[in-house]
Structure formats: structure tokens, C-alpha cells
């Protein structure tokens, strides 16, 4: 099945003023293989993709496509040679149909007008080839994220892509959608399409890839056959140091109930009841759309409760807006970090002190010294890597941005912290740090609710797991009874 070299990078370097993004990188891809690329954030993966897709030109080195050597590529040339990229952010137009999106830029015309019929027919063929049922006339906006991604893939292969680059394709998908995407990757592979698969998630690398290459600090480290390696070894290669254990263990057991949710209804969820204890990490599992984030919004007060109540520290929690929840000691680390967690264009200091600004002010006048000392305290304790606390947050990596979100809530000294997908888009090393921080917080007696679509993380971190399905409780599982299968069956509403 796996044939000759289809693409070869020869001693590629890419220098930016003051930065070496790629450093003498040589890598070889074989026809028909699924080749995973792993590396921490900032390792140079995206620069490498951009070199292949022609978005940037390398400072040094050459690219060899099927024996033909280029010193640089243009996006057009790269396409012509059969290379297509599926980026993390989709490039679809939501108001147009699936078929129109697939043929965007190369519309099939019937004289002056669009030949919709022909485009729809060909789209249907493509979907059939991918073994999925999508109506080519459906508006992209009406499709789920998973289907949107399939449209994106169909768009890529409609142009006879021989080499498909997928940049973290599973990141926006739900568990069941991920499985569907795996099958599409398998199918494309059967068709002889070469796939470069970039991912942070170890389980999918082992599920899908034939070979794995590791990149670190812009340098090529090694390539191994996937079935001859294991997770620990890969992580070690990526971070260049030994990580003791994937999920650190905690010392202190949970003590007393701090929050008691009963028959909570509103914002698309119904009749949710559970207890939350001090010192525990309560996992929240379920498919995307099961109502986990929506439930968190109710507890945080950013959406209205229709009925049911929350007993918090022995008192009913009566709130209409999130400032009241924040005051009561509830914090939320949102799923969409860049939109809801941080203000990208403001400094680390401004972000960290945002919720607690009134506390470090007198008569509404900000106390600069306290502001600085508070920020520096959390910069140290959470190890936010930055040259200065005056650095804008948009210049930080995902992991460090997440630490900024954490810092801003820790400065409020909360009792309940809700983590919504705490490690999404964060590299392995930083993930470990976030896990350690979460465990330390639980050890200090904080109650943590963790929403996660990453099954390993959910199983590894949680003391108990609440599973939601279609806005309702599907069950609560204790640590001992938790298995991936049980959570999935409950989440699918089959138990």
C-alpha cells in the first residue's frame, strides 16, 4: 500500500527577524501513508504546513514533490501539485449550500448562470465516496460542525488532492463525529491519498497513523513507525524531557458538600440534580450539544434559571447575572478561550485583574502597585511564561493564555471553579501543568467542575462523572465504575 516518496522537505529553514521557526528540517512523506506530526505549540508545525501549502517561502532548503524540486511554492502551485490543507478554522461560507461551497472558486457554469444541478450531482458523488449522508443542497450553516468539516474535506478532494494536510481536525468535533472523521481518513487512505495529520491527541495518532514524526523547536527530531512506539515515548520526544505521569494523583479526599443542584431547568437543560463537594473534581461528560456548557452557564449566572434551585454553602443561590455568582465565589473558565476567556488586545496584567479590579481599587481608583503585585504573584505561581506582565495576551501561546484565565479567577479566591474544556488546543507540556494546578486547587479544598470531551482527561482527572444526554441527566458515575464504554453508552442515551 505505502509506496514511494511523494513529498520531501530538504534542509528547510525559515527565519523571521529574531526567530528561527524552522531549523534545517528534513522530512519525507510516502505515498498513501497517514503521517502524523506531533510537537508542542510553537514547535514549527504550522510553519511547516505553510511551507508546503505555499503560504510562505522558506529561507533555505528545497521542497521535492514527486521528484520535482522547488525552492519555494505558491498556494496556486501547491494546489496544482495536488496538495490540499484542512485548517482548524473552516473556510466555508455559511449561507451557501454544501455543493456551492465545494465548488467555490471553480463554479461549474452553464453559460452565465451557475449549474447547480451538476454541482449537486458531483457533490453527492463525493459524499458517497466518503460514505456519508449529507444533502448537497443543505446550507452549511445548518450542518453540524462534524458535517461542515466533511464538506471541507470534500472540497479538498474535489480538486483531486493527492496529499491532504489536516491540522488538528478533531479539535472542534464531538466524540461521535470524531469516529466518523476517522472513518473518512481510513477511506481516503484506501483511495491512495497521502495524509499529513497534525494532532495533540495521542489516542488518535495511534488509531490513525502509520508513521509519526516529532518536531521540536523547529527541528526535526525523529520519525518512528506508530506500531513500534508508545505514548510515553512520544511525549518524551516532543517535550524533550521525561513526564512522570499523565494524570497526577491527589492526596486529599473530598470533604463536605458545597453546592447542591436540584431539578435545575433552563437554557436548554432540564431537571439536573447533583451534589458538588469541596476538594473534588466533578467531571462532566456527554456529547457536544448535550447541555454541559449550558448547565455551566446556569450555575455561573450568565443564563437564566427557569426552575429548580442551587443550594450553595447552605443557602439558596439567588442570582440574575454573573457578577453575583462571581461575588459568591463561583468562577468559570470558558471553552472558547479567545472569545470569552481573555481580552487578546489587552495586557496580561489588565486581564488578570479584570474581575478583581474593584478589590484592588480605592474609590474606584486603581492601585497600580497592588495590581502589579497581584499579577506577579500569579505569574510566578502558575509559571506564566512571558517577558513582562505588560505583554499583550494575544502574543502568548494557548497554554499560557489559559493560565492567564486561571490567574484572573484565582485572584478572586473562588470556592467553585468550572473548567469548560480546560486543555483544548493546549500542548502536552502545558496540559500537564494545568492538570497539576487543578489537582492542587482541589487539594486546597476548592470544588471543581470539569467539562471535557477528551475521554482520557475525563477519566484521568475526575473523582465522579456526571453524564448528560440531550439536556438531561444520564447518570452519575463514581471513579471505580467509570469506563470509556459506560460513559459513551450513557452519553448516547442508551442506558
Amino acid at each position, binding site marked *: 500500500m505505502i509506496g514511494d516518496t511523494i513529498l520531501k522537505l530538504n534542509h528547510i529553514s525559515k527565519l*523571521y*527577524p*529574531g*526567530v528561527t521557526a524552522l531549523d534545517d528540517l528534513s522530512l519525507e512523506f510516502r505515498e498513501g501513508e497517514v503521517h502524523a506530526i506531533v510537537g508542542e505549540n*510553537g514547535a514549527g508545525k504550522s510553519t511547516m504546513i505553510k511551507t508546503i501549502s505555499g503560504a510562505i517561502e522558506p529561507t533555505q532548503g528545497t521542497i521535492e514533490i514527486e521528484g520535482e524540486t522547488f525552492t519555494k511554492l505558491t498556494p496556486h502551485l501547491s494546489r496544482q501539485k495536488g496538495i490540499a490543507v484542512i485548517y482548524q478554522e473552516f473556510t466555508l461560507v455559511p449561507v451557501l449550500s454544501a455543493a456551492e461551497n465545494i465548488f467555490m472558486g471553480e463554479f461549474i457554469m452553464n453559460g452565465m448562470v451557475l449549474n447547480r444541478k451538476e454541482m449537486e450531482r458531483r457533490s453527492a458523488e463525493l459524499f458517497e465516496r466518503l460514505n456519508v449522508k449529507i444533502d448537497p443542497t443543505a446550507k452549511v450553516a445548518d450542518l453540524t460542525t462534524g458535517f461542515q468539516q466533511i464538506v471541507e474535506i470534500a472540497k479538498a478532494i474535489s480538486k483531486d488532492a493527492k496529499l491532504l494536510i489536516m491540522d488538528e481536525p478533531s479539535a472542534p468535533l464531538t466524540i461521535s463525529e470524531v469516529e466518523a472523521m476517522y472513518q473518512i481518513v481510513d477511506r481516503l487512505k484506501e483511495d491512495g491519498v497521502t495524509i499529513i495529520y497534525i494532532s495533540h491527541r495521542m489516542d488518535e495518532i495511534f488509531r490513525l497513523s502509520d508513521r509519526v514524526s516529532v518536531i521540536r*523547536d523547529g527541528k526535526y527530531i525523529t520519525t518512528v513507525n506508530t506500531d513500534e512506539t508508545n505514548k510515553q515515548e512520544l511525549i518524551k520526544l516532543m517535550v524533550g524531557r521525561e513526564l512522570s505521569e499523565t494524570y497526577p494523583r491527589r492526596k486529599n479526599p473530598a470533604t463536605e458538600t458545597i453546592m447542591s443542584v436540584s431539578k435545575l431547568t433552563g437554557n436548554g437543560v432540564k431537571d439536573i440534580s447533583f451534589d458538588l463537594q469541596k476538594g473534588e473534581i466533578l467531571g462532566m461528560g456527554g456529547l457536544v450539544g448535550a447541555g454541559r456548557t449550558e448547565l455551566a452557564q446556569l450555575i*455561573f449566572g*450568565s443564563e437564566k434559571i427557569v426552575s429548580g434551585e442551587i443550594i450553595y454553602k447552605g443557602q439558596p443561590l439567588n442570582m440574575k447575572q*454573573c*457578577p453575583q455568582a*462571581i*461575588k459568591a465565589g463561583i468562577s*468559570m473558565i*470558558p471553552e472558547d478561550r479567545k*472569545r*470569552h*476567556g*481573555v*481580552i*487578546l*488586545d*489587552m495586557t496580561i496584567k*489588565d486581564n488578570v485583574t*479584570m*474581575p478583581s*479590579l*474593584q478589590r484592588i*481599587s480605592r474609590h*474606584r*481608583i*486603581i492601585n497600580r502597585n497592588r495590581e502589579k503585585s497581584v499579577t506577579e504573584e500569579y505569574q510566578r505561581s502558575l509559571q506564566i*511564561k*512571558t*517577558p513582562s506582565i505588560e*505583554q*499583550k495576551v*494575544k*502574543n*502568548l*501561546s494557548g497554554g*499560557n493564555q489559559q493560565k492567564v484565565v486561571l490567574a*484572573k479567577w484565582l485572584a478572586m479566591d473562588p470556592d467553585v471553579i468550572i473548567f469548560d474544556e480546560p486543555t483544548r488546543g493546549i500542548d502536552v507540556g502545558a496540559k500537564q501543568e494545568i492538570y497539576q494546578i487543578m489537582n492542587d486547587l482541589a487539594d486546597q479544598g476548592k470544588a471543581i467542575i470539569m467539562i471535557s470531551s477528551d475521554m482520557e482527561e475525563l477519566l484521568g482527572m475526575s473523582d465522579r462523572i456526571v453524564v448528560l444526554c440531550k439536556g438531561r441527566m444520564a447518570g452519575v458515575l463514581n471513579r471505580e465504575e467509570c469506563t470509556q464504554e459506560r460513559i459513551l453508552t450513557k452519553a448516547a442515551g442508551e442506558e
Partner: protein
Amino acid sequence: MKKLVKSKEFGVLMVLVALIIFFGIASPQFMKAQNFFNISKQIATVGICSVGFCFVLITGGIDLSVGYQISLDIVVTAVMMNTLGLNWAVACLIGMLLGTGIGLVNGLIIVETHVAPLIVTLSMMTILKGISYLITNGLAIFKFPDAFVKLGQGTIAGIVPISLLFLVAIIIIGIFILNKTVYGRYFYAIGNNVDAAKLSGVNVKKIQLMAYGLCGFFTSIGAILMLARLNSAQSSTGDGYEFNCLTACVVGGVSSNGGKGTVLGAIIGCLIVGVLENGLAIMNINEYIQEVIKGLVLLVAVIYDTMSLLKNEKVKKIKAINVEN
């Protein structure tokens, strides 16, 4: 010095210096001290209004009604003083209350209905215009107490205009609010990312309301000073001031997309616009050509702002990644 050169306002300051040198060479009258005090008198109103205007811009809004707010504030204050014969200080107070009230109404409609600020304030502009003409019937109101007129025309020690002192005071208050208080910080937060601000516990509605209220308040002070300087109230007086404020702010680096800018920048922007107007007038340039130039200045400023933003970000990001690794 290095810090000064790197600061955001430095580039704009250089434009101002270049303009002054240009007009200085082009016309000998321009460089006289008296002319500079003239300019300061002329820009006092725009300057004061721009402080409030930049608050609104920073929160991500806009207030196009500023021009006719000035007109209505002026007309109402004049009627209070002249027709009703109230004490001038009381009349001014009523004018200021009115201005603040209009700002708050703008803000209230915007935060409660979520209609785009551009549309709300554009409608408000037309409403205010109508009301002001209803009051004056298109005629001018004049003759005010001497003590009042002195606010706009008087000087201290024979040279420093009193209106300049008001301008400086408002600038200091503006800088204080924006840099030292929690409200200023919230203005930036809302302008940059309203969702994240809300989820951090910021009372977004209240803060937005405040920005529009302050804008109305500062505008009324600017209006009253203008009334005192002109010694005559007409409904057409404020026409076009929203454009001058917007130009001054954007030229001074206050982003029309919200979240960026400083009071000092906005004031340098005012000076640029003021020097340009004054210089062109001294050089006897046709009035209509002046309009064309003013429009071009705003357009160029917006283009420059957008382009330099894109460029800077790339360089900074690469530097930061470098440090992190």
C-alpha cells in the same frame, strides 16, 4: 527619550510638528503667539467634546449626535439666560444637565435595544436638530451677561484664554478617568471584547451608559464655552462637529473599531485638525477645498491606522514567541 519615541502618540505628534513647520514657512502670520492662542480658542470646543467622544469610541460605540447636541445645549442655555432671564450659572448648569441627559438617553437606547449606535445616534442627531430649530425658528439669540461671555472670550494676564484653561482641565480629568479608574479599564475591555468583559463580571450596560453620559456631559461643557465665545446662539452652530470630533480622534490614533486610543492622542488629533483649518484659512484657501482636505485627512488616518495595526502585530507576535521558547 526612547520611550517617548516608541509611544503611540509620537508619530501623530510628528505630523503636527510637520504641519506647523509647513504653515510657518508658507505664511509669516501663522507663527505668531497670538495665532496660537486663536487656534487654542478655536479648538477648545472640539477638544473638550473629543474627550467624551473618544470614551464612546473606545467602548466600541460612536455618537453622531454630538454636533446637534451642541446646537441644542447652546440654544437651551441661551433661552434660559436670555428669554427666561435666569442667572447665567444656573442656565449653564441646566445646559450641562441637558447634555448629560441626551447622552444617557442615547446610551439607554443602545444598551437596552442593541440597535447599532450609528443608527441610534444618527436618528438622535436629526431629532435634536429639529427640536433646536423649533425653539429658535432659525433665528439667532444673542446678548448675554458679560461675566458669561468672558468664559469664552476672556483671557488671563491678557494673553492666556480662559477657554484654554477649561480645555486643559477637561483633558486632565479625561486622562484620569481613562488611566487611573476602573471605569477607564472597563471602557477598553468592552471595546476589545464585550463577551469576555461580561463574563469577567463587568457590568457592561452600566459602563456603556456611562460612556455615552460622559460624552454628553463633556459635549455640553464644550457647547457652553462655544456659546460664550460666539456670544450668539444658532441652531446651525453645532453642524458638522461630530465629523470634527471623529476626525480628531481617529487621526490621534483612537480606533474606530473600539478598544484602542488615548485622550492625549485625541487632543493631538484636535490640534492637527485645528492647525490645518487655521493654516488653510490664513493661506486663503477656498472653503470648499478645505472640506475636501478634511475628508481626505479622515480617510488617510483610518487607512493608516488599519494598515499599521496589521504590520505591528506580526512583528510583535514573532518577538513574543521567541521569548517564550
